[in-house]
Each structure stands twice: as structure tokens, then as C-alpha cells.
């Protein structure tokens, strides 16, 4: 994919370093992180999260013209840590009340994790999509989701070599299903690509990075943060569990919305698959992975609960902003840059007579 358009001093410095225009200026970046303007929201800031997203992305895919060896460059890793530190601290600070409450609650851990996901306050984007969203708004949702879902499940796979026994077997069992059970056309990331195509959208990895706001990059960064640090393996698996446990019922609503909007069946198929698959995965993740990791001393209960809360928090932060934009009649996407289309394209076969251009 192409390096994204910059959004401020941090992403400018990272792009310059990755493109090889100049070496990573660790001292300047360090100062910029320390002197972030007062009021910078570390869960949504555009510049901060674009910079961190690029650094994480080196572990997943190529950027055109960027030396792949930079993945393990000490200066690059140094800068990544400068950004990860405050992000992790902010996540812990915002999650702590929920974590403390769940740790103090009675009952078996899986039951408490299910209870936390069911009681966490957050807006329902799925309900909105089911009943109200226009075609344009649904396409925006697909663009927002493309950042993660074209690499669906990958951030949680980092944990496989870091755990053992029953939780490892359960994680691989879950991921085998995510990765299509041996059938490439059933890879969930591929199925998501098919559904993007069914919407008339670009299925190439990273195609919409310039369009998505900081909160979407931040929720992706949270997954990479938890997945890439072995010490956070319990939190990564808690995140996985919460992701799965907040998927079945919403995906049923998304599928309903897709059919209401008259989009091609391939789009609904992706969501149907997740209704069924994630009803299995949530049980595996909370019982056989999270519960067993803690029971066998491979992870701390506090870390697992933190990961669950991180997922729920980031989802709520994004959902709040998306619904607020839509209710105010605004797009949730950033304006297209000079080189990218200003509107999202029309679905190849969708409802007729509907205005499909998405304002930027």
C-alpha cells in the first residue's frame, strides 16, 4: 500500500523516516510526544494514531518504497515505544473503573466477562444500521471497517506461540475458523473483501487509510499494542473475547440493514457468517482461552479484564462519534485527498434510483 497522507508533525516525521527522506529524528519526535497540546485525546487523535498505525503496519504489510528491514530498526522501535507508552497509559486509566468492578464481582471469570460485555454502556451502531442508515452511511461503515477487517484476526494470532496447552488449542481452533478452515474463499478477511467489492468499494489492503478518522486507527492500534507485546497476551485474548462476544447479535442487525438497503447478497453473507461463527468463538474465547489462561497461571485475571474493557471502550468511542456525525447529517469520513476520489463509488448492483455518492 501507499504511505498515507500526513496529519500533523508526528505522522510527518514518521512518513519522512519511513520513506527514507531523512533518518528517524528520535529526539524531535520524543519532544513532540512530550509536548502534545493540552487536551489531546489519546484515544482519537488523528496525527498520533496515524503515526503509530504506520509503525505497527510494518509488522503486517509492505508500504510502497519503504525498506521492510525498518520493521526491526532500533530507531523505529524507539519511536513506536514513545507513542505506545502514553497510549497504553491512557487505555489503562480509562478502563480502570470497569476493570476494578469486574475483578471485585463474584462468579466464574467467563461469566463475569460475559456480564461485562453485556453491561458496558455504548451506542448501538448496529441498531442504527439495521433500521435507519442510508446507503451512503452503510458504505462509510464498510470503509471504516476495512482498516481492520482486511486483516481480520491477524493481530490476535501473534499470541499463538506465547501460550500453551488448552488455551493454545482453543485459540488455534478459533483462528482456523477465522482463516476459512482450509478454504481460502472462506477466509474472513477475503469474505470481507468480497463484501467490499459487492458494495462497489476498493478491496485493496489499506486503500481507505486516508479517509478514516483517528478513532478507527486507534482501535486498530489497540489490537496491535496488545497483540505485539507478549506481556499483554492476557489482554490480547480478553480483547479477542470481547470482540467475538459483541459480534453475533450486531452482525444479525447489520445483515438486516444490508438486505433493507438492497445490497448484493454477498455483502449480507459476510455478516451472516459472523452471526454463526462468533456465537462459537465467544464461548471458546471467554471459556477455553481466557478462563483457562488464568486458571493455568499463563495470564493474570486483571490483564484479561483489561483487554475486554479496551475492546468495549474503543468500540464505544468510535460508535459515539459515528452516530453523532450521522445524526448531525455529517460524513464520518475525512475528506478525500487530492489524489483520491472525493466520493465512494456506487455498488455494482444495488438499489436503483438511490443517490450513492458519499460526500467527503
Amino acid at each position, binding site marked *: 500500500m501507499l504511505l498515507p497522507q500526513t496529519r500533523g508533525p508526528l505522522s510527518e516525521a514518521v512518513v519522512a523516516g519511513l520513506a527514507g527522506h531523512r533518518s528517524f529524528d528520535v529526539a524531535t519526535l520524543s519532544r513532540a510526544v512530550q509536548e502534545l497540546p493540552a487536551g489531546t485525546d489519546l484515544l482519537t487523535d488523528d496525527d498520533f494514531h496515524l503515526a503509530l498505525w504506520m509503525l505497527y503496519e510494518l509488522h503486517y504489510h509492505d508500504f510502497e518504497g519503504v525498506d521492510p528491514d525498518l520493521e526491526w530498526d532500533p530507531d523505529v522501535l524507539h519511536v513506536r515505544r514513545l507513542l505506545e507508552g502514553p497510549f497504553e497509559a491512557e487505555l489503562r486509566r480509562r478502563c480502570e473503573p470497569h476493570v476494578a468492578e469486574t475483578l471485585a464481582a463474584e462468579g*466464574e471469570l467467563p*461469566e463475569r466477562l*460475559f456480564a461485562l460485555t*453485556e453491561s458496558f454502556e455504548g451506542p448501538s451502531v448496529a441498531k442504527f444500521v439495521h433500521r435507519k442508515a442510508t446507503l451512503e452511511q452503510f458504505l462509510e461503515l464498510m470503509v471504516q471497517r476495512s482498516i481492520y477487517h482486511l486483516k481480520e484476526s491477524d493481530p490476535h494470532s501473534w499470541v499463538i506461540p506465547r501460550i500453551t496447552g488448552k488455551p493454545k488449542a482453543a485459540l488455534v*481452533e478459533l483462528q*482456523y*475458523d477465522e482463516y476459512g*478452515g482450509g*478454504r481460502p474463499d472462506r477466509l474472513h478477511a477475503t469474505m470481507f473483501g468480497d463484501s467490499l467489492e459487492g458494495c462497489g468499494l476498493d478491496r485493496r489492503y489499506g486503500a481507505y487509510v486516508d479517509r478514516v478518522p483517528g478513532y478507527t486507527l486507534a482501535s486498530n492500534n489497540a489490537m496491535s499494542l496488545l497483540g505485539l507485546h507478549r506481556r499483554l497476551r492476557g489482554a490480547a485474548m480478553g480483547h479477542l473475547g470481547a470482540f467475538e462476544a459483541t459480534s*453475533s*447479535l450486531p452482525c*444479525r442487525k447489520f445483515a438486516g440493514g444490508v438486505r433493507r438497503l438492497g445490497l448484493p447478497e454477498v455483502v449480507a453473507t459476510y455478516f451472516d457468517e459472523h*452471526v*454463526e*461463527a*462468533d*456465537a*462459537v468463538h*465467544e*464461548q*471458546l474465547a471467554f*471459556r477455553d482461552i481466557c478462563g483457562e489462561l488464568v486458571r493455568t497461571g499463563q495470564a493474570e485475571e486483571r490483564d484479561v479484564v483489561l483487554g475486554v474493557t479496551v475492546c468495549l471502550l474503543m468500540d464505544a468511542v468510535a460508535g459515539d462519534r459515528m452516530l453523532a456525525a450521522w445524526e448531525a447529517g455529517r460524513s464520518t469520513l475525512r475528506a478525500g485527498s487530492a489524489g483520491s476520489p472525493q466520493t465512494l463509488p456506487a455498488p455494482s448492483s444495488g438499489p436503483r434510483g438511490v443517490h450513492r455518492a458519499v460526500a467527503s
Partner: protein
Amino acid sequence: MRLVGRVPEPVAFCGDDIEVTPCPEGPMLVRGADAVRDGAGELHPTTRPVVAVCACDRSQRMPWCDGTHKVLRRRQ
């Protein structure tokens, strides 16, 4: 065939080496099934390594769990 815990009738599983694990207040996890036969005798094939079979009888994708038991729990 090895059974772990109670299996509500009249669901039947087809496969050589089947393991059934009931989840508290949730579905039955079934490993090793090629298909599930529902109460009406209809066969529902699957290729998943593990499936969640509805135990609350309210799923809209029977015989598979679709998470509806969580909605029922909230209403109680």
C-alpha cells in the same frame, strides 16, 4: 462417541468422534460433527471444527446458536 454433560433431545450429531460441551446459560459446543439432525429430522451439515448448537430453542438460525440466549437473559 463421547458425551460430556447433558444433551437436550431430540438433537443428534453425526460424526465419528464427537465431543459435546454444554456452556452454562449458553449453547452446546460440539466438536467433530459433520452434521446436526434437528427435531424434525432435517440434517444440517457443517464444516466448522467446532459448532455452537442452540440450547435455548430461540435461535433464528436453528440449529445453530445466534446469541439470542443473551437477549433472553437480559429480559429476565
